[in-house]
């Protein structure tokens, strides 16, 4: 504790004198959490574009199977054959890389990495993360991981192609598909770096939230964003090591000839020497990460939404404690439901029914959260900023995508729907689009704090409506295709008479997907243009309560020029009856607002004064003893 305080003091002293960073320490090897957050954001945007582009490629194949894709030869080269058709092996690689990139690089690193880094110290009142060096390392491990994954895209045998879940034996045997060669090796190396990056980041987030809060910032006064980042980091800390263990055994199987996952396999009529392994073992290990990963992706988005919705409804968040308890519930439940991904893996049906029961329980905290969002919006003085629209969009996706989760969580129904486009529709709405909208809401909302300028709201509205409508046009029809039996990860499904009836709908989805992808360039323009040419932001443009809006427009290394402000109230005092303005910042003491204090808060003021006078007596007594 003493050291924690001295660390704070040294940071204060550090801040007093101007220190000049050169380009490299300021923009590249920065240890400032704000710069690291921005680095994560820009890298995340880069990967989102690549991931989105890959999806456009395979949507072209799905929507227009007969299409001549020769015009893509300059980019794809040999992956387009002489007749202009996409290589089927490469199609599998496209799907795999789209999944890997979006889940890990965009929605884990790009979302959690950006906002946990940027907001945790600013909102809890800390000078920086617990370890700036570890934080920097976290970004650069992510960067190395990205470079390796990027290189794997250009291999002659193609990147990993066994699906983002990389199930063995497909991923373990080089002979299985071209993507299981060098591409898979690079995938595993990249993911190892990624796991290291996530763990370094996560350890830092948890340590910072627990140890470096400013005076008065008790856990019951933390903004819900911080709660969500904190719980996300806890989930990551417990689940990523398990993925590491799974990947390690896979590496041994691939490169050293062990048989953890391999047994009794014949390739080309020849038996492999591997015996005694279990492929289902990998699935257990993978999904022990894989399912919590869904919440690693989603929880930060939900936290951001809580903050944005409360601010722009000018109302306290409905059920603050219920929100925290739901998030805690989701955190705990996320670790005991993994086998619902394996209902058709030959799992004991009795075990399946237990996992089904646990899975359906998640509907309760999720519904509580949805209810609280809606009741916060209910009769609020809604201000439709772009961030607010994206947050409302998130709630919409969370509902429509969450409902189908109840279908899929039932083991009996899952047997019919497993590995169809119904599943694709479900998780793209509830996890993919919802988290993406959370990310967008966060960017629009905190852009003024990041760059000191405002993003253009009109472009934001256009971006929102095109994306919102686009997402529904893409993913809603997929439910129908899925119910009708169209399987995931298939290159074509037109060989039979009955299965060519999906082509129309697929064409529709593909066109919608391409338009939605193109709409993202509006955001891209807005983002980079506003960074340099946007309207100068005021100090607290959204009239929000949290601590980050008490910093200067361009906070330096250390965030606050003087003392770190103390916190006296929760972050959701919006439209408090009797108050002069419709928001009271967390730094305003209760005793300064007698006109709006509730009876129990008035009691607290008295109590606080008593404590303070006692403390002062002790202080005076100590001083006289020392002298």
């Amino acid at each position, binding site marked *: 504790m003493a*050291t924690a305080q001295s660390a704070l003091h040294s940071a204060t002293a550090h801040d007093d004198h101007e220190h000049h960073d050169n380009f490299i320490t300021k923009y590249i090897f920065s240890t400032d959490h704000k710069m690291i957050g921005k680095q994560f954001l820009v890298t995340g945007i880069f990967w989102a574009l690549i991931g989105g582009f890959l999806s456009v490629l395979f949507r072209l194949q799905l929507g227009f199977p007969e299409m001549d894709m020769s015009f893509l030869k300059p980019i794809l080269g040999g992956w387009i054959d002489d007749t202009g058709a996409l290589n089927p092996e490469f199609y599998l690689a496209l799907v795999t890389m789209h999944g890997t990139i979006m889940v890990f690089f965009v929605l884990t690193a790009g979302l959690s990495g950006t906002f946990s880094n940027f907001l945790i110290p600013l909102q809890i009142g800390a000078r920086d993360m617990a370890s700036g060096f570890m934080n920097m390392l976290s970004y650069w491990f992510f960067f190395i991981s990205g470079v390796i994954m990027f290189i794997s895209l250009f291999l002659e045998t193609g990147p990993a192609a066994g699906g983002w879940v990389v199930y063995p034996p497909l991923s373990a045997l080089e002979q299985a598909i071209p993507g299981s060669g060098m591409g898979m090796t690079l995938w595993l190396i990249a993911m190892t770096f990624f796991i290291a990056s996530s763990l370094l980041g996560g350890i830092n987030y948890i340590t910072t939230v627990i*140890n470096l809060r400013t005076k008065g910032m008790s856990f019951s006064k933390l903004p819900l964003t911080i709660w969500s980042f904190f719980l996300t980091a806890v989930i990551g*800390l417990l689940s990523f090591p398990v993925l590491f263990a799974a990947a390690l055994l896979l590496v*041994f199987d691939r490169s050293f000839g062990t048989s953890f996952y391999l047994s009794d396999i014949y390739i080309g009529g020849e038996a492999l020497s591997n015996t005694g*392994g279990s492929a289902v073992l990998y699935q257990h290990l993978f999904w022990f990460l894989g399912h919590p990963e869904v919440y690693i992706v989603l929880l930060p988005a939900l936290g951001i939404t809580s903050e944005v919705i409360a601010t722009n409804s000018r109302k306290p968040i409905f059920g603050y404690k219920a929100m925290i308890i739901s998030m805690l519930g989701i955190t705990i439940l996320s670790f005991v439901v993994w086998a619902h991904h394996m209902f058709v893996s030959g799992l004991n049906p009795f075990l399946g029914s237990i996992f089904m029961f646990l899975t359906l329980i998640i509907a309760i905290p999720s519904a509580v959260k949805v209810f609280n969002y809606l009741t916060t919006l209910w009769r609020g003085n809604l201000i439709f900023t772009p961030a607010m629209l994206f947050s409302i969009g998130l709630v919409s996706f969370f509902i429509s995508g969450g409902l189908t989760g109840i279908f899929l969580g039932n083991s009996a129904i899952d047997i019919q729907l497993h590995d169809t486009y119904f599943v694709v529709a479900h998780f793209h709405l509830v996890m993919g689009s919802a988290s993406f909208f959370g990310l967008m809401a966060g960017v629009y909302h905190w852009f003024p704090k990041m760059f000191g300028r405002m993003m253009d709201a009109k472009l934001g509205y256009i971006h929102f409506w095109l994306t919102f409508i686009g997402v529904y046009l893409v993913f809603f029809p997929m439910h129908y295709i899925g119910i009708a039996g169209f399987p995931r990860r298939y290159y074509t499904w037109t060989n039979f008479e009955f299965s060519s009836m999906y082509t129309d709908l697929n064409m529709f989805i593909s066109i919608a997907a391409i338009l939605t992808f193109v709409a993202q360039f509006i955001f891209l323009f807005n983002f980079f243009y506003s960074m340099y040419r946007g309207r100068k932001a005021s100090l607290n443009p959204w009239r929000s309560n949290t601590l980050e809006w008490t910093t200067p427009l361009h906070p330096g290394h250390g965030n606050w020029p003087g003392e770190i402000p103390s916190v006296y109230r929760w972050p959701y005092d919006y439209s408090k009856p009797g108050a002069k303005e419709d928001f009271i910042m967390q730094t305003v003491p209760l005793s300064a607002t007698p006109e709006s204090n509730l009876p129990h808060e008035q009691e607290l003021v008295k109590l606080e004064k008593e404590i*303070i006078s006692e403390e002062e007596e002790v202080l005076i007594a100590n001083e006289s003893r020392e002298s």
Partner: protein
Amino acid sequence: MEEKLNYIEAAEQPIAMHPKKFALWLFIVTVVMIFAALTSAYIVRQSEGNWLEFDLPEIFWYSSGIIVLSSLTFHWAYISAKKDNLQNLRIGMVITSVLGVVFLVSQWYGWIALVERDVYFVGNPAGSFLYVFTGLHGLHLVSGVIFLIIVLISSFRYKVHSKQLATLEMCVTFWHFLGGLWLYLFMFLLLNH
């Protein structure tokens, strides 16, 4: 009136712990999760049958003894540091480092004993798991020894004493954890092989 009240109202300081020590504990949690995953994978795989039965090398008993002894010597060094007895601190830490290396050597002999029993890394997963457990634990122990040596060097530079114990305490925590981890793995293997 309001302005005056502003600064006499002090806010509470939240509970806090040394951030680096806290981070070390979180790192320990990740290591625990890795081994929890591997040992539960062992149990899941074992229950499926086709499992090679063999006796564990006796040398693992000796290595367990060595690691427990090293924890004791390290703790003695730590208590010495608290009393500012720097001579004993250095002696204790040198002995601990040597014991750490001896432990690694004995684990190596454990592997040799396994090979003599025809249990190889490549083959039935029963054996492969054993190599992964010991190998991964050994790797962590190497990092522990490196950490020990770093602290040892700083103790020779008079940077470890009763007023500056944080790094040493972190090293002690990590070392005890590694010892405990080995005892867990060994007991697990005794009960489940």
